[in-house]
């Protein structure tokens, strides 16, 4: 679910907010030119998301959260389901936030995982997001708040007429130009919503968030993760999938803001800042493997 109404900017409609953002971005040398002149307060809101910085889970001066709460995938290798669903929810909520009566989406990761996931289920070795998305297009996902599905209920899901379908997805990777890929990702996050991204998971990634959660429980970790940040990165565990909800080009190093699926306690609040890659070795290749934006119906 999106945040409570107390955090909503009451007078800003979806349409006017987008124009404000566009105007602000254009002024900053950013994306698309707009026409509406915002008030100082609204300008401050718009300035929170521009070509250099954006955070869809703490958006603007009033910290609008377009993302649902951080979930916990448990011991299952189900990160793909959680990242895909988080990205669909965030994209929908970004588009529809503030629309009359809309309370945002909270969709069923369990449905996606058990209905569309590979046969090995919790012990699967690979399940790429591109293989999960067709189900979201063809069948769609039920709203979890309708209690049709719980994550650990692996009974056969029954598609309903109220399932939320997406129109498809689009790859944001330019295989010959990493900087273009990064720009594609930032443009998408700024204009449309979060993106799905696959990364290489080293042993020190989970330890990074575990250590912070122990020493700073419930506090956001503003340190940026990269393999080997605390010494040796350890071995590679495999692939991992997250939903990238923001970016910063003014931090050192530049980083992505990622919604993880290891619970709200991990790394303080369940989110993690991951260093943007350079295409060199010794990184988690988060821009290079599979980066997808979802298209709403």
């Amino acid at each position, binding site marked *: 679910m999106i945040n409570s109404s107390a955090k909503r900017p009451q007078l800003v409609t979806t349409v006017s907010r987008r124009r404000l953002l566009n105007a602000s971005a254009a002024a900053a040398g950013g994306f698309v030119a707009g026409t509406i002149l915002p008030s100082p307060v609204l300008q401050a809101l718009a300035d929170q998301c521009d070509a250099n910085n954006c955070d869809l889970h703490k958006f603007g001066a009033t910290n609008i959260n377009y993302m649902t709460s951080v979930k916990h995938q448990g011991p299952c*290798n189900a990160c793909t389901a959680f990242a895909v669903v988080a990205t669909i929810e965030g994209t929908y909520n970004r588009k529809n936030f503030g629309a009359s009566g809309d309370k945002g989406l909270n969709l069923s990761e369990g449905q996606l995982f058990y209905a569309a996931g*590979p046969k*090995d289920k919790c*012990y*699967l*070795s*690979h*399940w*790429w997001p591109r*293989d999960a998305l067709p189900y979201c297009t063809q069948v769609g996902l039920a709203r979890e708040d309708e209690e049709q599905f719980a994550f650990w209920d692996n009974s056969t899901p029954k598609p309903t007429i109220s399932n939320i379908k997406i129109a498809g997805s689009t790859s944001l*990777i330019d*295989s010959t130009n*990493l900087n273009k890929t990064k720009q594609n990702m930032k443009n998408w996050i700024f204009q449309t919503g979060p993106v799905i991204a*696959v*990364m*290489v*998971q080293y042993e020190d990634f989970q330890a990074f968030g575990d250590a912070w959660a122990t020493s700073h429980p419930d506090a956001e970790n503003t340190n940026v993760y990269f393999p*080997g940040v605390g010494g*040796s*990165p*350890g*071995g*590679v*565990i*495999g*692939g991992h999938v997250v939903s990238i909800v923001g970016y910063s080009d003014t931090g050192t190093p530049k980083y992505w803001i990622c919604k993880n699926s290891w619970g709200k306690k991990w790394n303080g609040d369940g989110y993690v800042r991951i260093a943007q*890659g350079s*295409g*060199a*070795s*010794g990184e*988690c*290749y988060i*821009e*290079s*493997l599979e980066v997808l934006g979802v298209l709403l119906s």
Partner: protein
Amino acid sequence: MASGWTGLAQTLNIQFDTNLDDFAKKFKDKHGPNGNGDAAQGKPAYKFGQFVDKHGGLLNSAAERGRFLIDSGSRHWDGSINILEAVVKHSLTHEKPAGTPKPKKIKFLDILTDPNATHARVEVRDHNGNQINAPNDALIEPAENFVVQITCPPST
């Protein structure tokens, strides 16, 4: 599985054959004289996948390197990966006589797919065809060279 490994077996075979001495030197430069790392010098212990990915000549793009690392991750292997890691370390740090590098060749066979497998596994044999069954198997030291057969689950 193994989607990042297309053609890699042949490339690795070149490194473990005609480029073996240079390959072994770079390995020790990165992972220490025994492949077990050297914390004082900031050298990490060797883990499967984390040597090959450093060589741009083997994996040409960031996407290839990343996919290879994912395929080499511990989540996707049964315990036999420990045997392969031990054999690679032994091969690339071997000296005879002591102090004189004499790395041993490793031949990688084309990767097989097992439709019933849930994890990748590896079979390592010595020059006589005897299977190496443990990371400390007594067959490793006297082996003249090794043959490696990797079997993967089907790609999803």
